[in-house]
């Protein structure tokens, strides 16, 4: 068993609200510098930069989890973390079918697609900052259908968190964990396992918050076991 330091919620330059420097190589380099073993890429309602960061990560021996931060129609944010790129791209298909409107770069910021060498290869024109027409229940179910982990994002913030938007976690919602940003919030009892991550939109915030997992190897299945406390895997409270 080994201790793995993970920051599972990072944005890239694809998110209109994230800094343009949040590109694949740059993120991987900063994550390494911050001592992270594993990162998760969770842009708003899109996963078009996931592959680039995964490739950049594999060059540097950094484990990159394919993810997405999905906005429910109630404007609650749910993270989906997936075992591979193809599962997240399937999730993206469903999200795109339920996400309407065109983004306006002037108002919301650019949505840049890059490759693993930080070359700009395109622009996304969907309204990624918008809400999908999916309910939190539908999002959680769709994530699980694709063998992913469903995690309610930044529960210690009012805006765009499940608790802020909906007052409390809907009874019986089968979340795999909830996420907080402040380590001090991690001891609160949400009734679910708690992870801490940075939700970084700027390079200097990568790894500012993180979760230590005790696992056998760097994989989503191991993270799942740690969240469930199975076979000695666990979340290490710092």
């Amino acid at each position: 068993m080994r201790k793995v330091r993970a920051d599972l919620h990072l944005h890239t330059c694809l998110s209109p609200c994230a800094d343009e420097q949040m590109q694949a190589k740059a993120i991987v380099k900063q994550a390494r510098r911050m001592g992270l073993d594993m990162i998760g890429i969770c842009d708003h309602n899109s996963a078009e930069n996931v592959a680039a960061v995964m490739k950049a990560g594999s060059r540097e021996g950094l484990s990159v989890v394919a993810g997405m931060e999905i906005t429910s129609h109630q404007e609650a944010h749910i993270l989906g973390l997936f075992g591979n790129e193809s599962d997240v791209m399937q999730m993206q298909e469903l999200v795109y079918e339920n996400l309407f409107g065109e983004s306006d770069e002037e108002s919301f910021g650019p949505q840049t697609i890059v490759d693993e060498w930080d070359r700009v290869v395109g622009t996304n024109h969907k309204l990624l900052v918008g809400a999908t027409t999916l309910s939190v229940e539908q999002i959680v179910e769709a994530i699980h259908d694709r063998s992913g982990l469903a995690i309610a994002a930044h529960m210690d913030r009012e805006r765009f968190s499940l608790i802020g938007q909906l007052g409390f976690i809907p009874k019986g919602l089968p979340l795999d964990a909830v996420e907080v940003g402040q380590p001090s919030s991690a001891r609160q009892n949400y009734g679910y396992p708690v992870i801490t991550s940075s939700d970084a939109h700027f390079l200097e915030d990568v790894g500012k918050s993180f979760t230590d997992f005790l696992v056998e190897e760097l994989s989503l299945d191991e993270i799942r076991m740690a969240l469930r406390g199975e076979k000695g895997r666990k979340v290490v409270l710092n």
Partner: protein
Amino acid sequence: MKLTELIRKLNLGVRSARGNLEQEVAGGYASDLLSDVLAHGREGDLWVTLQVHQNIVAIASMKGLAGIILVNGREPEQEAIEKAEAENVVIMVSEMPAFELVGRLYSLGVAGMER
């Protein structure tokens, strides 16, 4: 003022708890953050919102609100209707946007704070 009167004057649709329309409305509160309503809603308030999730019923019930009005022609989710029937919470719907509805409620005497 009673709910029935507001329903008639503002042409509201009723989606649940039709047996509970004789309630007195003490005031009003408008918000789409349920955590905010939990913190600031008062007993007897009429709540104006666009949220349609079943959690609205739990919050109305917990805070003893007089009822919920959904704006802009939004319809409650089926689970919300079922829960509202079970907990006797009145859910109403209006075609009006929130600003217009709140203005009309105010002119009918439903206030957001003590005057």
